[in-house]
Protein backbone atom coordinates (compact mmCIF):
# COMPACT_ATOMS: atom_id res chain seq x y z
CA UNK A 1 0.00 0.00 0.00
CA UNK A 2 2.61 2.49 1.04
CA UNK A 3 4.68 1.69 -1.95
CA UNK A 4 2.01 2.60 -4.44
CA UNK A 5 1.35 5.85 -2.67
CA UNK A 6 4.97 6.81 -2.99
CA UNK A 7 4.98 5.91 -6.63
CA UNK A 8 1.99 8.05 -7.34
CA UNK A 9 3.56 10.96 -5.61
CA UNK A 10 6.68 10.50 -7.58
CA UNK A 11 4.72 10.41 -10.74
CA UNK A 12 3.21 13.76 -9.95
CA UNK A 13 6.48 15.45 -9.14
CA UNK A 14 7.95 13.87 -12.19
CA UNK A 15 5.41 15.47 -14.46
CA UNK A 16 6.25 18.81 -12.93
CA UNK A 17 9.88 18.35 -13.74
CA UNK A 18 9.01 17.46 -17.27
CA UNK A 19 7.08 20.60 -17.89
CA UNK A 20 9.97 22.57 -16.52
CA UNK A 21 12.32 20.71 -18.75
CA UNK A 22 10.87 21.95 -21.97
CA UNK A 23 11.05 25.54 -20.95
CA UNK A 24 14.56 25.51 -19.56
CA UNK A 25 16.25 22.28 -20.46
CA UNK A 26 19.64 23.81 -20.49
CA UNK A 27 19.55 25.42 -17.09
CA UNK A 28 18.66 22.18 -15.40
CA UNK A 29 21.05 20.05 -17.30
CA UNK A 30 24.01 22.33 -16.81
CA UNK A 31 23.40 22.45 -13.08
CA UNK A 32 24.07 18.76 -12.59
CA UNK A 33 27.76 18.95 -13.23
CA UNK A 34 29.80 16.61 -11.19
CA UNK A 35 32.20 17.60 -8.49
CA UNK A 36 34.29 14.65 -7.62
CA UNK A 37 35.72 15.07 -4.18
CA UNK A 38 38.01 12.49 -2.83
CA UNK A 39 37.74 13.21 0.89
CA UNK A 40 35.18 10.67 1.94
CA UNK A 41 35.15 7.03 1.01
CA UNK A 42 31.84 5.25 1.09
CA UNK A 43 30.36 1.81 0.73
CA UNK A 44 27.68 0.94 -1.76
CA UNK A 45 25.57 -1.88 -0.43
CA UNK A 46 22.82 -4.00 -1.78
CA UNK A 47 21.61 -7.42 -2.62
CA UNK A 48 21.44 -9.26 -5.91
CA UNK A 49 18.64 -11.72 -6.39
CA UNK A 50 18.93 -14.65 -8.75
CA UNK A 51 16.05 -15.56 -10.97
CA UNK A 52 13.27 -17.64 -9.48
CA UNK A 53 13.85 -21.12 -8.22
CA UNK A 54 13.67 -23.47 -11.18
CA UNK A 55 15.88 -21.17 -13.23
CA UNK A 56 18.41 -20.34 -10.55
CA UNK A 57 21.74 -21.42 -12.00
CA UNK A 58 23.97 -23.37 -9.71
CA UNK A 59 26.75 -21.32 -8.24
CA UNK A 60 25.39 -18.06 -9.60
CA UNK A 61 27.16 -16.08 -6.88
CA UNK A 62 30.58 -16.84 -8.32
CA UNK A 63 29.50 -15.81 -11.82
CA UNK A 64 27.91 -12.52 -10.82
CA UNK A 65 29.97 -9.35 -10.68
CA UNK A 66 29.15 -5.74 -10.11
CA UNK A 67 30.80 -3.01 -12.08
CA UNK A 68 30.82 0.62 -11.15
CA UNK A 69 31.56 2.95 -14.04
CA UNK A 70 32.51 0.05 -16.24
CA UNK A 71 34.88 -1.63 -13.81
CA UNK A 72 36.45 1.29 -11.96
CA UNK A 73 35.22 -0.37 -8.77
CA UNK A 74 34.16 -3.97 -8.45
CA UNK A 75 31.77 -5.84 -6.31
CA UNK A 76 31.50 -9.56 -5.74
CA UNK A 77 28.43 -11.34 -4.53
CA UNK A 78 28.42 -13.39 -1.35
CA UNK A 79 26.53 -16.59 -0.70
CA UNK A 80 23.30 -14.80 0.26
CA UNK A 81 23.45 -12.43 -2.69
CA UNK A 82 24.56 -9.39 -0.73
CA UNK A 83 27.41 -7.24 -1.91
CA UNK A 84 29.44 -4.29 -0.69
CA UNK A 85 31.50 -2.08 -2.94
CA UNK A 86 34.24 -0.49 -0.94
CA UNK A 87 36.16 2.75 -0.99
CA UNK A 88 33.95 4.68 -3.36
CA UNK A 89 34.48 8.44 -3.20
CA UNK A 90 31.47 10.72 -3.45
CA UNK A 91 30.16 11.20 -6.95
CA UNK A 92 27.72 9.75 -9.39
CA UNK A 93 28.15 6.22 -10.63
CA UNK A 94 26.46 3.70 -12.83
CA UNK A 95 26.22 0.30 -11.24
CA UNK A 96 25.82 -2.72 -13.48
CA UNK A 97 25.23 -6.31 -12.49
CA UNK A 98 27.00 -8.69 -14.84
CA UNK A 99 25.93 -12.23 -15.26
CA UNK A 100 26.45 -14.17 -18.48
CA UNK A 101 22.93 -15.60 -18.52
CA UNK A 102 20.73 -12.97 -16.90
CA UNK A 103 20.34 -9.28 -17.49
CA UNK A 104 19.80 -6.71 -14.80
CA UNK A 105 18.85 -3.08 -15.09
CA UNK A 106 21.71 -0.66 -14.43
CA UNK A 107 21.22 1.78 -11.55
CA UNK A 108 22.72 5.21 -11.06
CA UNK A 109 24.01 5.65 -7.52
CA UNK A 110 24.80 9.14 -6.31
CA UNK A 111 26.77 9.87 -3.18
CA UNK A 112 26.95 13.50 -2.20
CA UNK A 113 29.85 15.03 -0.31
CA UNK A 114 28.02 14.55 2.98
CA UNK A 115 27.69 10.84 2.35
CA UNK A 116 24.00 10.78 1.48
CA UNK A 117 23.02 8.11 -0.98
CA UNK A 118 20.48 8.24 -3.73
CA UNK A 119 19.80 5.48 -6.21
CA UNK A 120 17.81 6.09 -9.35
CA UNK A 121 17.06 4.63 -12.71
CA UNK A 122 19.54 5.33 -15.44
CA UNK A 123 18.18 7.72 -18.01
CA UNK A 124 20.82 8.96 -20.42
CA UNK A 125 18.40 10.97 -22.50
CA UNK A 126 16.85 13.01 -19.71
CA UNK A 127 19.69 13.16 -17.25
CA UNK A 128 17.74 15.34 -14.83
CA UNK A 129 14.77 13.02 -14.48
CA UNK A 130 14.86 11.25 -11.14
CA UNK A 131 12.99 8.02 -10.61
CA UNK A 132 14.26 6.90 -7.28
CA UNK A 133 14.77 3.28 -6.37
CA UNK A 134 15.23 2.09 -2.80
CA UNK A 135 18.68 2.11 -1.29
CA UNK A 136 20.31 -0.27 -0.19
CA UNK A 137 19.86 -1.68 -3.63
CA UNK A 138 17.74 -4.67 -4.38
CA UNK A 139 18.61 -5.94 -7.81
CA UNK A 140 16.32 -8.39 -9.48
CA UNK A 141 16.96 -9.87 -12.91
CA UNK A 142 14.93 -8.62 -15.84
CA UNK A 143 15.03 -12.07 -17.31
CA UNK A 144 17.23 -14.47 -19.15
CA UNK A 145 19.41 -12.69 -21.67
CA UNK A 146 18.32 -13.58 -25.17
CA UNK A 147 21.48 -13.88 -27.18
CA UNK A 148 20.04 -16.09 -29.85
CA UNK A 149 17.44 -15.91 -32.49
CA UNK A 150 14.81 -18.58 -32.31
CA UNK A 151 14.89 -20.83 -35.29
CA UNK A 152 11.66 -21.04 -37.19
CA UNK A 153 10.13 -24.45 -36.92
CA UNK A 154 7.97 -26.05 -39.53
CA UNK A 155 4.41 -26.24 -38.33
CA UNK A 156 1.33 -27.56 -40.15
CA UNK A 157 -0.70 -24.53 -39.18
CA UNK A 158 1.93 -22.21 -40.65
CA UNK A 159 1.75 -24.17 -43.84
CA UNK A 160 -2.03 -24.24 -43.99
CA UNK A 161 -2.53 -20.58 -43.23
CA UNK A 162 -0.07 -19.54 -45.82
CA UNK A 163 -2.03 -17.20 -48.14
CA UNK A 164 -0.84 -19.08 -51.22
CA UNK A 165 -2.10 -22.36 -49.85
CA UNK A 166 -5.38 -20.76 -48.85
CA UNK A 167 -5.74 -19.37 -52.33
CA UNK A 168 -5.22 -22.82 -53.77
CA UNK A 169 -7.39 -24.74 -51.36
CA UNK A 170 -10.43 -22.48 -51.17
CA UNK A 171 -11.27 -22.61 -54.89
CA UNK A 172 -10.61 -26.32 -54.81
CA UNK A 173 -13.21 -26.71 -52.11
CA UNK A 174 -15.59 -24.48 -53.96
CA UNK A 175 -15.25 -26.29 -57.23
CA UNK A 176 -14.79 -29.91 -56.22
CA UNK A 177 -16.46 -30.51 -52.90
CA UNK A 178 -19.38 -28.14 -52.78
CA UNK A 179 -21.16 -29.45 -55.88
CA UNK A 180 -20.85 -32.99 -54.57
CA UNK A 181 -22.26 -31.93 -51.24
CA UNK A 182 -25.10 -30.26 -53.00
CA UNK A 183 -25.97 -33.42 -54.92
CA UNK A 184 -27.18 -34.84 -51.66
CA UNK A 185 -30.95 -34.24 -51.78
CA UNK A 186 -31.34 -33.28 -48.10
CA UNK A 187 -28.70 -30.62 -48.16
CA UNK A 188 -30.16 -29.48 -51.43
CA UNK A 189 -33.39 -28.77 -49.72
CA UNK A 190 -31.67 -27.04 -46.87
CA UNK A 191 -29.63 -24.99 -49.21
CA UNK A 192 -32.69 -24.08 -51.14
CA UNK A 193 -34.21 -22.79 -47.99
CA UNK A 194 -31.14 -20.80 -47.17
CA UNK A 195 -30.92 -19.73 -50.75
CA UNK A 196 -34.43 -18.44 -50.73
CA UNK A 197 -33.62 -16.58 -47.56
CA UNK A 198 -30.59 -14.97 -49.04
CA UNK A 199 -32.50 -14.30 -52.19
CA UNK A 200 -34.98 -12.49 -50.15
CA UNK A 201 -32.36 -10.42 -48.45
CA UNK A 202 -30.22 -9.34 -51.33
CA UNK A 203 -31.41 -10.65 -54.60
CA UNK A 204 -29.31 -8.55 -57.00
CA UNK A 205 -25.88 -9.67 -55.84
CA UNK A 206 -26.70 -13.35 -55.65
CA UNK A 207 -28.26 -13.05 -59.07
CA UNK A 208 -25.08 -11.63 -60.36
CA UNK A 209 -23.03 -14.48 -58.96
CA UNK A 210 -25.42 -17.14 -60.20
CA UNK A 211 -25.35 -15.59 -63.61
CA UNK A 212 -21.64 -15.67 -63.47
CA UNK A 213 -21.58 -19.32 -62.48
CA UNK A 214 -24.18 -20.15 -65.03
CA UNK A 215 -22.02 -18.49 -67.57
CA UNK A 216 -19.12 -20.74 -66.68
CA UNK A 217 -21.29 -23.81 -66.81
CA UNK A 218 -22.48 -22.71 -70.22
CA UNK A 219 -18.94 -22.44 -71.47
CA UNK A 220 -18.28 -25.87 -70.08
CA UNK A 221 -21.20 -27.19 -71.95
CA UNK A 222 -19.96 -25.56 -75.08
CA UNK A 223 -16.58 -27.15 -74.56
CA UNK A 224 -18.12 -30.52 -74.09
CA UNK A 225 -20.14 -30.19 -77.23
CA UNK A 226 -17.02 -29.23 -79.10
CA UNK A 227 -15.27 -32.26 -77.65
CA UNK A 228 -18.11 -34.53 -78.65
CA UNK A 229 -17.92 -33.01 -82.10
CA UNK A 230 -14.26 -33.93 -82.27
CA UNK A 231 -15.04 -37.44 -81.28
CA UNK A 232 -17.24 -37.72 -84.23
Amino acid sequence: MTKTAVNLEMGASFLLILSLLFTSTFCIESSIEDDTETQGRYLIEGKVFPSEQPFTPANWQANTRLHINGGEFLGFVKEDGSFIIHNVPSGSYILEVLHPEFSYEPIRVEINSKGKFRARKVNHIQTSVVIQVPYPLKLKPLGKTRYFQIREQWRVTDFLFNPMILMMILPLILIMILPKMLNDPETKKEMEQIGSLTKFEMPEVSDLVTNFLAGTSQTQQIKKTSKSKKRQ
Partner: protein
Amino acid sequence: MNIKCVIVCLLIYFFSFIYASNIEYDGYVHINLRHALVSSESPVFTDRGNITIQSLRTGSSTIQQKALSQSDKIKLRDLSAANKFYQLKSIVTASDGSQVSFVSTIKACMLVESELSDILSVSLDYSGKVITVTLAVASTSTCEGATVPIDKLKEFTTSVFVRHTENGPVPDTATYIQKLEREREAKERGEVKDNRSFLAKYWMYIVPVIIIMVLSSAANPDGAGGAAR
Protein backbone atom coordinates in the same frame (compact mmCIF):
# COMPACT_ATOMS: atom_id res chain seq x y z
CA MET B 1 41.82 29.43 -66.38
CA ASN B 2 38.11 29.60 -65.91
CA ILE B 3 37.98 26.24 -64.19
CA LYS B 4 40.67 27.35 -61.82
CA CYS B 5 38.70 30.41 -60.93
CA VAL B 6 35.74 28.23 -60.11
CA ILE B 7 37.90 25.99 -58.00
CA VAL B 8 39.28 28.88 -56.07
CA CYS B 9 35.81 30.20 -55.54
CA LEU B 10 34.70 26.79 -54.38
CA LEU B 11 37.63 26.58 -52.08
CA ILE B 12 36.90 29.96 -50.65
CA TYR B 13 33.38 28.83 -50.10
CA PHE B 14 34.43 25.69 -48.37
CA PHE B 15 37.11 27.32 -46.33
CA SER B 16 34.74 29.95 -45.17
CA PHE B 17 32.18 27.29 -44.50
CA ILE B 18 34.01 26.34 -41.36
CA TYR B 19 33.92 29.91 -40.26
CA ALA B 20 31.66 29.53 -37.27
CA SER B 21 34.23 31.11 -35.01
CA ASN B 22 33.94 29.76 -31.53
CA ILE B 23 37.26 30.68 -29.99
CA GLU B 24 36.82 32.40 -26.69
CA TYR B 25 39.64 34.93 -26.85
CA ASP B 26 40.49 36.82 -29.98
CA GLY B 27 44.10 37.41 -30.79
CA TYR B 28 46.43 38.37 -33.55
CA VAL B 29 49.13 36.31 -35.18
CA HIS B 30 52.15 37.34 -37.12
CA ILE B 31 53.55 34.91 -39.67
CA ASN B 32 56.95 35.27 -41.25
CA LEU B 33 57.14 33.27 -44.48
CA ARG B 34 60.44 31.88 -45.73
CA HIS B 35 60.83 29.56 -48.69
CA ALA B 36 63.40 27.22 -50.12
CA LEU B 37 63.83 27.31 -53.88
CA VAL B 38 66.51 24.65 -54.06
CA SER B 39 65.65 21.13 -53.14
CA SER B 40 68.20 19.66 -50.78
CA GLU B 41 68.53 17.54 -47.71
CA SER B 42 68.88 20.57 -45.43
CA PRO B 43 67.08 23.32 -47.30
CA VAL B 44 68.09 26.96 -47.05
CA PHE B 45 65.14 29.23 -46.47
CA THR B 46 65.05 32.77 -47.80
CA ASP B 47 62.59 35.50 -46.95
CA ARG B 48 59.31 35.51 -48.84
CA GLY B 49 57.07 37.88 -46.93
CA ASN B 50 55.00 38.58 -43.88
CA ILE B 51 51.39 38.02 -43.01
CA THR B 52 49.57 39.49 -40.08
CA ILE B 53 46.23 38.13 -39.06
CA GLN B 54 44.71 40.93 -37.01
CA SER B 55 41.84 38.94 -35.71
CA LEU B 56 41.80 35.19 -35.48
CA ARG B 57 38.09 35.28 -34.96
CA THR B 58 37.22 37.03 -38.19
CA GLY B 59 40.30 35.86 -40.06
CA SER B 60 41.10 39.26 -41.54
CA SER B 61 44.70 39.51 -42.60
CA THR B 62 47.24 41.76 -44.31
CA ILE B 63 49.76 40.23 -46.65
CA GLN B 64 53.11 41.71 -47.67
CA GLN B 65 55.15 39.65 -50.05
CA LYS B 66 58.17 40.55 -52.10
CA ALA B 67 58.27 39.97 -55.81
CA LEU B 68 60.56 37.17 -56.92
CA SER B 69 63.95 38.21 -58.18
CA GLN B 70 65.15 37.02 -61.59
CA SER B 71 67.45 34.42 -60.07
CA ASP B 72 64.68 33.16 -57.83
CA LYS B 73 62.39 32.85 -60.83
CA ILE B 74 64.93 30.68 -62.58
CA LYS B 75 65.43 28.61 -59.48
CA LEU B 76 61.71 28.07 -59.19
CA ARG B 77 61.42 27.17 -62.84
CA ASP B 78 64.26 24.66 -62.48
CA LEU B 79 62.65 23.21 -59.40
CA SER B 80 59.44 22.82 -61.32
CA ALA B 81 61.20 21.24 -64.30
CA ALA B 82 62.88 18.69 -62.02
CA ASN B 83 59.50 17.86 -60.45
CA LYS B 84 60.82 18.73 -57.01
CA PHE B 85 59.16 20.21 -53.99
CA TYR B 86 58.83 23.82 -53.04
CA GLN B 87 59.14 24.26 -49.30
CA LEU B 88 57.72 26.98 -47.16
CA LYS B 89 58.62 27.69 -43.58
CA SER B 90 56.16 29.75 -41.58
CA ILE B 91 57.38 31.24 -38.34
CA VAL B 92 54.30 32.05 -36.33
CA THR B 93 54.47 34.60 -33.53
CA ALA B 94 51.34 34.56 -31.41
CA SER B 95 49.98 37.47 -29.42
CA ASP B 96 51.61 36.13 -26.25
CA GLY B 97 54.98 36.27 -27.97
CA SER B 98 55.50 32.53 -28.35
CA GLN B 99 57.13 31.41 -31.58
CA VAL B 100 56.54 28.20 -33.47
CA SER B 101 57.67 27.30 -36.95
CA PHE B 102 55.95 25.01 -39.41
CA VAL B 103 57.19 23.55 -42.66
CA SER B 104 54.86 22.97 -45.58
CA THR B 105 55.63 21.41 -48.95
CA ILE B 106 53.97 21.50 -52.34
CA LYS B 107 54.97 20.40 -55.79
CA ALA B 108 56.89 23.24 -57.41
CA CYS B 109 55.31 22.57 -60.78
CA MET B 110 51.86 23.13 -59.38
CA LEU B 111 52.88 26.46 -57.95
CA VAL B 112 54.34 27.46 -61.27
CA GLU B 113 51.32 26.33 -63.24
CA SER B 114 49.04 28.31 -60.99
CA GLU B 115 51.25 31.35 -61.68
CA LEU B 116 52.14 31.77 -58.04
CA SER B 117 48.62 31.97 -56.74
CA ASP B 118 48.48 29.88 -53.64
CA ILE B 119 46.44 29.35 -50.53
CA LEU B 120 47.75 29.51 -47.00
CA SER B 121 45.64 27.62 -44.52
CA VAL B 122 46.22 28.49 -40.86
CA SER B 123 44.62 25.84 -38.68
CA LEU B 124 43.71 26.65 -35.10
CA ASP B 125 42.85 24.39 -32.23
CA TYR B 126 39.75 24.99 -30.14
CA SER B 127 41.47 27.65 -28.03
CA GLY B 128 42.75 29.62 -30.99
CA LYS B 129 46.33 28.41 -31.00
CA VAL B 130 47.95 27.79 -34.38
CA ILE B 131 48.58 24.09 -34.82
CA THR B 132 49.81 24.14 -38.39
CA VAL B 133 50.24 26.34 -41.44
CA THR B 134 49.78 24.58 -44.76
CA LEU B 135 50.44 25.84 -48.25
CA ALA B 136 48.21 24.55 -51.01
CA VAL B 137 47.45 25.24 -54.63
CA ALA B 138 43.91 25.06 -55.89
CA SER B 139 43.84 22.47 -58.65
CA THR B 140 41.96 19.38 -59.65
CA SER B 141 45.01 17.45 -60.75
CA THR B 142 48.67 17.50 -59.96
CA CYS B 143 50.73 18.85 -62.85
CA GLU B 144 49.44 19.23 -66.35
CA GLY B 145 52.84 19.95 -67.86
CA ALA B 146 51.89 23.39 -69.05
CA THR B 147 54.78 25.73 -69.75
CA VAL B 148 54.49 29.01 -67.99
CA PRO B 149 56.53 31.99 -69.21
CA ILE B 150 59.06 32.97 -66.63
CA ASP B 151 57.93 36.57 -66.36
CA LYS B 152 54.57 35.43 -65.08
CA LEU B 153 56.35 34.11 -61.98
CA LYS B 154 56.65 37.43 -60.32
CA GLU B 155 54.28 38.12 -57.50
CA PHE B 156 52.67 35.70 -55.12
CA THR B 157 48.96 36.11 -54.86
CA THR B 158 48.20 34.43 -51.60
CA SER B 159 44.83 33.94 -50.00
CA VAL B 160 44.98 33.35 -46.27
CA PHE B 161 42.34 31.27 -44.56
CA VAL B 162 42.06 30.92 -40.84
CA ARG B 163 40.46 27.60 -40.08
CA HIS B 164 38.80 27.10 -36.75
CA THR B 165 37.98 23.94 -34.92
CA GLU B 166 34.31 23.26 -34.93
CA ASN B 167 32.33 22.50 -31.84
CA GLY B 168 31.51 18.86 -31.75
CA PRO B 169 28.02 17.50 -32.24
CA VAL B 170 25.91 16.67 -29.22
CA PRO B 171 23.20 14.02 -29.07
CA ASP B 172 19.96 15.70 -29.98
CA THR B 173 17.81 14.69 -27.05
CA ALA B 174 15.56 17.73 -26.94
CA THR B 175 13.83 17.17 -30.28
CA TYR B 176 13.53 13.49 -29.55
CA ILE B 177 11.81 14.14 -26.26
CA GLN B 178 9.57 16.67 -27.95
CA LYS B 179 8.72 14.19 -30.64
CA LEU B 180 7.80 11.56 -28.10
CA GLU B 181 5.79 14.13 -26.20
CA ARG B 182 3.90 15.06 -29.33
CA GLU B 183 3.20 11.44 -30.13
CA ARG B 184 1.96 10.86 -26.63
CA GLU B 185 -0.35 13.83 -26.82
CA ALA B 186 -1.63 12.70 -30.18
CA LYS B 187 -2.38 9.29 -28.80
CA GLU B 188 -4.16 10.75 -25.84
CA ARG B 189 -6.37 12.78 -28.11
CA GLY B 190 -7.04 9.65 -30.10
CA GLU B 191 -5.85 11.18 -33.27
CA VAL B 192 -4.16 8.09 -34.46
CA LYS B 193 -5.17 7.70 -38.06
CA ASP B 194 -5.53 4.32 -39.58
CA ASN B 195 -3.90 4.54 -42.94
CA ARG B 196 -4.72 1.03 -44.07
CA SER B 197 -6.76 0.51 -47.17
CA PHE B 198 -10.42 -0.33 -47.07
CA LEU B 199 -9.83 -3.97 -47.95
CA ALA B 200 -7.02 -4.45 -45.46
CA LYS B 201 -9.19 -3.05 -42.70
CA TYR B 202 -12.42 -4.89 -43.31
CA TRP B 203 -11.43 -8.13 -45.03
CA MET B 204 -12.70 -10.24 -42.17
CA TYR B 205 -16.19 -8.94 -42.83
CA ILE B 206 -15.99 -9.11 -46.58
CA VAL B 207 -14.75 -12.68 -46.89
CA PRO B 208 -17.68 -14.36 -45.04
CA VAL B 209 -20.17 -12.31 -47.01
CA ILE B 210 -18.64 -13.46 -50.27
CA ILE B 211 -18.56 -17.07 -49.12
CA ILE B 212 -22.19 -16.94 -48.09
CA MET B 213 -23.08 -15.40 -51.41
CA VAL B 214 -21.22 -18.08 -53.27
CA LEU B 215 -22.88 -20.78 -51.23
CA SER B 216 -26.31 -19.36 -51.80
CA SER B 217 -25.70 -19.12 -55.50
CA ALA B 218 -24.45 -22.68 -55.54
CA ALA B 219 -27.68 -23.71 -53.89
CA ASN B 220 -29.46 -22.29 -56.88
CA PRO B 221 -30.43 -25.42 -58.85
CA ASP B 222 -29.61 -24.40 -62.43
CA GLY B 223 -26.24 -22.92 -61.44
CA ALA B 224 -25.39 -25.90 -59.25
CA GLY B 225 -26.51 -28.39 -61.82
CA GLY B 226 -24.09 -26.95 -64.32
CA ALA B 227 -21.23 -27.01 -61.88
CA ALA B 228 -21.98 -30.49 -60.65
CA ARG B 229 -21.96 -32.17 -63.97
